[in-house]
């Protein structure tokens, strides 16, 4: 399975949750698969999906799923200690780990070589870290949502992209639509 197939498999699980989606291909693919006002699409700032997601989870009680990538987590590796030390049980980080920088031409990442992000997350102090095969991601996500525990899921999948257009939605529209959804759910 490649990222697009993983996203397809988790759409039924995440469609009613607050989602922060990583820059580039992940956001473009999810936007095309199932655009929801409860999804915040990142148009810039590679690496900050988990940080935005943690900030949102700490700020309000609804569950938050941050969809991230191995390359993006590597570029903001300091996020894992911050997550580990600011436990909030409404936060789930899903790292779609395809061992490559998909949006830029599938150059290999160190996560596809010697570096295990699962081991890194555990070493940083994250308490519930699950590594799974791509096919198991939806089930692991369901389990994490039911468990009400902050969880990091590292989904090992194959490298590859599908052709999708860039997101043309205005950033302020994305944010205001998302914030209205967050406010509505907390009303």
């Amino acid at each position, binding site marked *: 399975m490649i990222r697009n197939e993983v996203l397809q498999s988790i759409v039924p699980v995440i469609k009613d949750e607050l989602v*922060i989606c990583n820059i580039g291909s992940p956001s473009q693919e999810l936007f095309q698969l199932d655009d929801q006002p409860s999804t*915040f699409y*990142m*148009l*810039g*700032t590679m*690496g*900050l*999906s*988990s*940080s*935005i*997601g*943690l*900030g*949102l*989870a*700490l*700020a*309000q009680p609804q569950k938050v799923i941050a969809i991230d990538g191995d390359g993006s987590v590597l570029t*903001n590796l*300091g*996020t894992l*200690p*911050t997550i580990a030390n*600011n436990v909030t049980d409404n936060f789930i980080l899903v790292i779609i780990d395809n061992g490559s920088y998909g949006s830029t031409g599938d150059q290999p990442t160190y996560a596809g070589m010697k570096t295990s992000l699962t081991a890194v997350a555990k070493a940083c102090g994250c308490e519930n870290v699950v590594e799974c095969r791509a096919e198991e991601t939806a089930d692991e996500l369901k389990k994490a949502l039911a468990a009400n525990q902050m969880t990091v899921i590292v989904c090992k999948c194959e490298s590859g992209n599908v052709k999708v257009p860039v997101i043309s939605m205005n*950033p*302020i529209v*994305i*944010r205001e639509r*998302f*914030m209205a959804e*967050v*406010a509505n759910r*907390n009303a």
Partner: protein
Amino acid sequence: MANSISERIVDDMVNAGIDFVTTVPCKQLAGVIDLVEKNKKIYHIPSNKEDEGMGLCAGAYMGGKKPCIIMQNTALGVTVNTLAALIQYYQIPLPMLISYRGEVGEPVACQVEMALHTKPILQQMNIPTFHFHKKDDVEELSDILAYTQMCKKPTAILTDAAFWRVS
């Protein structure tokens, strides 16, 4: 004296509704950071790097909080992209309380190098910038915090060594 200024700053932040603060340490701002940590009305989350901190602030803002970041001016060198492509692009109000290292009174020569780039970077990015040099400059903080929410922009409050000097 420095302590009372730190108290004044944190009081003004709380009165302005600031309830989520991320910090990367600096000696000049140590008193403020200590009070932020102790204040029950503020969720304090130390970050490992300032762009990470700005991500936390963006998420907190979308969750209904009023965030603020406390950092050194050296961090402007690592946050230009995040300021442009996240905070400005999505119009997120973010006051940046900045220790303006490298000005007169600075003991560490290397700090002068980024001090020389601080205002040009902020100006190039059209970030409203306020320089606290004298003790009384703190009087404007409340209004700056309100202005930041009004215009939904990042704003920079540069606090230099003279401002922090114990007199």
